[in-house]
């Protein structure tokens, strides 16, 4: 047998050995045979079940602990204070709000049939009236032209420019976003605004308001300046009780 033949033969034998080894491993029986009888098996099952029970008990006790911590955290004064602070901030207009509501767009009347000059701004009186009307109809959060309207917001004429908190509102159209408590109030507000008098009042100033009610919740930005309280004082408890 020459060396080449030998080599191929060896190669084949290596492959065969490999195959046999794998086959042997595949069909090899488990090395330890199970020789337990019924009673031993029962005892073992019992042991395993006890272990399971123990583990379950441990899980439930841990979950209980988690729930306890959770309630403790909720009931703690800090949490209550935090929640109150959040609520107050939201009411004061210091946080961004998202919810159902309507969008009112104030735009100039473009038709040429009208006499006089085209409107280029909204008078502060009209805007105030609109805000008052919205507040009358259960509006909760209002923004005008992207500026949040809060209790101390001023809308006034400075140098013949309508300003809201010092920001000019000289670019029409102006978007007024209004958020209400829920979808039903939004619907109500929408219907009221459709028939309100303000449309006519705006029309006198060559302006037109368009009321729309988007299906998705709208977002109103937060009031981004520091609130300066100058003329307010906390009510003293004893005095408050009397009144």
């Amino acid at each position: 047998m020459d060396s080449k033949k030998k080599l191929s033969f060896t190669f084949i034998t290596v492959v065969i050995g490999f195959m046999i080894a794998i086959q042997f491993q595949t069909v090899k029986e488990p090395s330890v045979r199970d020789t337990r009888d019924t009673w031993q098996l029962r005892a073992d099952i019992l042991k395993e079940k006890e272990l399971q029970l123990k583990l379950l008990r441990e899980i439930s006790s841990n979950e209980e602990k988690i729930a306890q911590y959770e309630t403790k955290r909720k009931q703690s004064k800090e949490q209550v204070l935090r929640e109150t602070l959040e609520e107050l901030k939201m009411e004061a207009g210091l946080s961004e709000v998202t919810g159902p509501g309507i969008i009112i767009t104030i735009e100039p009347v473009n038709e040429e049939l009208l006499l006089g000059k085209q409107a280029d701004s909204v008078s502060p009186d009209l805007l105030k009236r609109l805000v008052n009307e919205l507040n009358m109809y259960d509006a909760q959060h209002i923004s005008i032209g992207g500026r949040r309207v809060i209790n101390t917001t001023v809308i006034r004429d400075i140098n013949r420019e309508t300003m809201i908190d010092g920001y000019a509102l000289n670019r029409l159209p102006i978007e007024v976003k209004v958020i209400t408590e829920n979808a039903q109030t939004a619907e109500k507000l929408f219907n009221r605004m459709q028939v309100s008098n303000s449309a006519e009042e705006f029309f006198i100033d060559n302006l037109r308001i368009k009321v729309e009610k988007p299906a998705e919740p709208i977002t109103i930005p937060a009031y981004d300046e520091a609130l300066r309280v100058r003329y307010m004082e906390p009510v003293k408890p004893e005095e408050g009780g009397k009144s």
Partner: protein
Amino acid sequence: MWLPVLGLIIGVILGLMTDIKVPDEYSNYLSIAVLAALDTLFGGIRAQLQNIYDEKVFVSGFFFNILLAASLAFLGVHLGVDLYLAAVFAFGVRLFQNIAVIRRIIIAKWSQNREKTEKNDI
């Protein structure tokens, strides 16, 4: 002569060390392939002893037999007939025949050798 045996041992060690396991549903194919390989191996040894060994026939026979056996088993599984038994039978019979021939040849050689040595002694 010892090189093939060494190869076999190396193959076995490799197989045991790699810890490869064939899934249960394929172990049938592997077993029949092993049988076909063994058949070819003994056929090769016999041919070598009879001086009609041909490398090409041997190597091609090795792979071809394995493939044939495995495909036969595959076909059997899909037809619902245990066709691999046919392969087992064929390879088993040939294995026995080959081993018998090898045994006879070795015995013949051995007795010849003994006669020679006896003659030389005399």
